[in-house]
C-alpha cells in the first residue's frame, strides 16, 4: 500500500490534523518553558562577573535563535510555495511571520534589559543589534506588504519574494559578532566547540529553546487554521466547519 505523501497538503485534510496537534504542542511548550525558567532563575549558579542580571539570557538567546530560525523556515515555505505553486505553503509562511516578529521583538527587548546594567546603555549601534533590528523591519514589511494587497494570489507570491530576498540578512546576523568587532559578545554555544558556560546554564537554555519551538508550532498551527478557514469560506466544508466551531464555542 502506497503512502499518499500529499494527503495533508490539502487545507481540508490539514485543518483537523492541525487541530489535533495543537494541544500536545501547547502542553509541551508550557511545561518546558516553566522547567527552563525554573532551572534558569533558581538552579543555575550566579555569574561571577555579571551577577544575577545575566539570567535574562535564558529568554534572550532562545528568542534570538527563534527569530532567525523562523525567518528561514518562513522563507523556505515561501520558496516551496513559489516553486510548487502550493497554497498551503503560503498559508504556513503567512502564519509564521507574526510569531517570528514577536520573537525578534522579545530578543531586542530582553537584550536592552540586559544591556542597561551590563553595558550601561539600553541600545548601542553595533552590527549584531543593528542586523537584528533590520530583521524586525523585514518581518513587519512582509506582514504589511501582504496586508496591502487585496488579491490573495498576488499577496502570497509578492510577500514570498520579499521573504526570500531578506534571507541575505540571516547569515549577516549570525556571523556579525565574528565579522565585526562588536560590543555584543561572541557566541558562547556552537556546534563545533564545547560550550563556554556551566552545564546547568546550557541545559536551561536548551530547554527554553525547545519550549519556544513547541510554542511556535502551537501558535503557528492555530493561526494557520484561522487562515485556512478565512480563505476556504467558498468551499462548502470551510463554511460548515466555521459554523460548527462557532456553535461549539457557545
Amino acid at each position: 500500500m502506497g503512502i499518499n505523501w500529499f494527503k495533508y497538503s490539502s487545507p481540508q485534510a490539514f485543518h483537523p490534523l492541525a487541530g489535533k496537534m495543537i494541544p500536545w504542542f501547547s502542553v509541551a511548550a508550557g511545561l518546558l518553558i516553566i522547567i527552563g525558567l525554573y532551572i534558569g532563575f533558581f538552579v543555575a549558579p550566579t555569574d561571577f562577573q555579571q551577577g544575577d542580571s545575566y539570567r535574562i539570557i535564558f529568554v534572550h538567546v532562545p528568542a534570538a535563535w527563534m527569530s532567525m530560525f523562523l525567518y528561514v523556515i518562513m522563507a523556505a515555505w515561501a520558496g516551496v510555495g513559489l516553486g510548487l505553486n502550493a497554497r498551503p505553503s503560503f498559508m504556513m509562511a503567512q502564519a509564521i511571520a507574526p510569531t517570528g516578529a514577536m520573537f525578534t521583538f522579545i530578543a531586542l527587548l530582553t537584550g536592552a534589559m540586559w544591556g542597561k546594567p551590563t553595558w550601561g546603555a539600553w541600545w548601542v549601534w553595533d552590527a549584531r543589534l543593528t542586523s537584528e533590528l533590520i530583521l524586525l523591519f523585514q518581518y513587519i514589511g512582509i506582514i504589511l506588504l501582504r496586508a496591502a494587497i487585496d488579491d490573495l494570489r498576488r499577496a502570497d507570491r509578492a510577500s514570498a519574494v520579499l521573504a526570500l530576498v531578506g534571507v541575505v540578512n540571516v547569515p549577516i546576523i549570525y556571523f556579525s559578532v565574528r565579522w565585526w568587532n562588536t560590543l555584543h559578545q561572541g557566541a558562547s554555544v556552537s556546534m563545533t566547540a564545547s560550550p563556554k558556560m556551566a552545564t546547568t546554564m546550557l541545559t536551561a537554555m536548551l530547554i527554553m529553546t525547545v519550549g519556544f519551538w513547541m510554542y511556535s508550532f502551537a501558535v503557528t498551527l492555530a493561526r494557520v487554521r484561522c487562515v485556512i478557514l478565512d480563505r476556504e469560506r467558498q468551499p462548502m466544508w470551510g463554511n460548515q466547519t466555521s459554523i460548527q466551531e462557532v456553535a461549539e464555542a457557545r
Partner: protein
Amino acid sequence: MSQPSMSEALGGVVRRDLLLAMRHRSDVAMSVFFVVIVASLFPLGVGPEAAVLRMIGPGVLWVTALLACLLSLGRLFTADYLDGVLEQTALIPQSLAVLVIGKVFAHWVVSGLPVVLLSPLLGLQFGLDGVTLGVLTLSLLLGTPTLSMIGAIGAALTLGLRGSGLLVALLVLPLFIPVLIFGAGAVTSSVSGIGSEANLSLLGACFLLSFAFAPWATAVALRIALE
C-alpha cells in the same frame, strides 16, 4: 520579423527610457534639487560649526542620496505599468531580468548619476577636504547603483497598490541599511584618516551581489504584478 538579440533588446529599453526621461526633464531636475535642498537644510538646522558639520556630513549626504533614490522609485515601472508597455515588455522573447537591468540602468543615469556628480559640491558645504570628496564621490558611484537595484525589487512588488509610495519605503529602507553603513563608513573613515579601502570593498561586494540577484527577483516580482 526576426527576434531582437539580447543586446538589441537591452539597448532598446535603455534608449527608450532615457528618451522618455529627456522629454520630462523637470522630473529629473526634481530629484537633484531635492538632494541639494535637503543637504542644505542640515547646516541651517544643526548650526554652522565646522567640526560638527565635518562629522555629520558623510552620513547626511548618504541619507539624502538614499531618500532621493527612494522618492524616484515610483517612476521606475509605474508609467509603463499603467499604459500597458510593461506587459508588452514582458512578452519580448528575451530574459525579463536583462530588460530589468536596462530599465534600472536608465533610472540610475537619470536619478543616481546626477547626485553622484553633484556630491563634491555638496561635500564642500560640510567642509570635507579634497581626498574625502573623492572618496565620497567614489562611494556614491559604487553605492547608488546598488540602491537602484535593490529599490527595483520593492518598486516591482508594490506596483499598482494603494499607498505604494509609503509601502515601498518600508520594504526597501531596511535593505538599504548595509549600503548606507558601508558608504557613509567609507567617507567617515577617510575623514578620520583610517583609510576607506575596506568599506569601499564591501560596497563593491554589495553592488556585485545586488547585480547578480536583484534583477532576477525584480523580474519575478514584475511577473507576479502583471498576472
